[in-house]
């Protein structure tokens, strides 16, 4: 049950009461407002009444989590509602209702093992759909080309949001693998450029590329370029704030090893280990030069690491003695 406060300023505030002493709700709210000298118009009755008496069309919808309910059961649930209390005065409209009320039954979080009875039952008004479906749309299982460290679709979207990826902006990933982060960014309308984490892009077949992944979602128009380069050489770019966001999942050596080219006396070891602290330093240098004003650098880290050379080597030694770094 809730009461709405409004009009005093241009805002309307929804107040949700946790206690069950319904008679005291409005008076209590008025007292507290008075205590803090807050001017507000408090409705005389709780919102429930306003909903019930609004005479607009409505329908009920039953949704269940972790268990499928058949039509009969759903109908039963609707019939069992306390219709004396929920005495909506508007007509029922199943096709185009003005209001939708959902009964949501939660059968626990153990997948495939629903609890006997629902753990929780919610009754709520539908306000808007979320974008959860997008996670399925971009799910890695349906993606043609993935790498062993491809970023999960949901997480990629979260990173896009954290990086404030916007439509019509230029985004760069300096350590791209299969391009999961770029798929999310392009889906938001951004244009994407990248430097592959590994230089062997040419060995891949034509349909196994960042570009092909974007194409799969009809986003090829948002692909700018991939270029093979050494991420430690930040002066490869013309000095200019180019990128609106840099989003990346750098190779910390935990999931995917990092290499870079360095001068060698013996001309044998062309690539040396690329230390975490150096990766950070290069990323920051790069971001400082090429991000637009208020642009964002967003990086994923697998573990809590200290950007300290000694600690980092110890960490690596502990976990990756056998690896091929």
């Amino acid at each position, binding site marked *: 049950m809730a009461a709405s406060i409004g009009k005093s300023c241009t805002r309307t505030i929804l107040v949700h009461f946790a206690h069950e002493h319904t008679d005291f709700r409005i008076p209590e709210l008025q007292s507290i407002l008075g205590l803090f000298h807050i001017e507000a118009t408090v409705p005389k009755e709780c919102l429930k009444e306003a909903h019930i008496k609004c005479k607009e069309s409505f329908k009920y919808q039953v949704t269940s989590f972790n268990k499928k309910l058949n039509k009969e059961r759903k109908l039963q649930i609707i019939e069992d509602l306390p219709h004396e209390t929920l005495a909506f005065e508007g007509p029922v409209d199943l096709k185009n209702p003005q209001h939708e009320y959902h009964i949501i039954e939660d059968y626990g979080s153990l997948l495939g093992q629903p609890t006997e009875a629902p753990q929780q039952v919610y009754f709520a008004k539908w306000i808007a759909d979320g974008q959860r479906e997008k996670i399925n749309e971009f799910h890695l299982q349906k993606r043609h080309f993935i790498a062993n460290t491809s970023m999960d679709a949901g997480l990629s979207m979260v990173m896009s949001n954290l990086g404030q990826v916007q439509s019509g902006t230029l985004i760069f990933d300096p350590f791209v693998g299969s391009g999961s982060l770029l798929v999310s960014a392009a889906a938001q309308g951004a244009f994407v450029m990248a430097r592959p984490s590994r230089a062997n892009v040419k060995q891949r077949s034509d349909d196994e590329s960042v570009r092909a992944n974007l194409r799969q979602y009809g986003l090829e*128009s948002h692909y700018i*370029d991939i270029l093979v380069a*050494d991420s430690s*050489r930040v002066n490869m770019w*013309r000095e*200019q704030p180019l990128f609106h966001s840099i989003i990346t999942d750098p190779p910390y050596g935990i999931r995917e090893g990092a290499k870079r080219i*360095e001068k060698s006396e013996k001309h044998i070891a062309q690539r040396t280990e690329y230390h975490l602290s150096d990766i950070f330093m290069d990323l920051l240098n790069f971001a400082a030069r090429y991000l637009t004003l208020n642009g964002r650098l967003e990086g994923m880290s697998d573990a809590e690491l200290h950007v300290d050379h000694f600690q980092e080597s110890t960490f690596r030694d502990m976990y990756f003695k056998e690896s091929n770094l």
Partner: protein
Amino acid sequence: MKLLTHNMLTSNIIKGVSKGFPLKIVASKVEEKEVDFVPEFTARMIPKIDWPALRQAAADLGKPDNLPENVVEKYEENEEFLKKTHHVLMELEVLEGELICPETGRKFPVSNGIPNMLLREDEV
């Protein structure tokens, strides 16, 4: 490689090179590919573009007449200009060829549309 990318690349990574821009393009395979026109994106890119370098790049690809000599005033509202710019920035792709450092003549290959800016160990 699109010309938008080319417009951002330098060869300053080579030891001793300080003005490795613009890289000359010698293309053996160029493709024109239609890309959705997003005016706000093109308009956002224009201030970042080195205009003479873009015109030169277009000329290197044998498309010299597409762009006016200078960025026009109020380009944000000039759809015709934005479309032309969009075409040169986004729809011309160098698939095979070389990018040449203006100071040293060092060649960076473009293969399968991907420029390779890696240096040999004795160049770093």
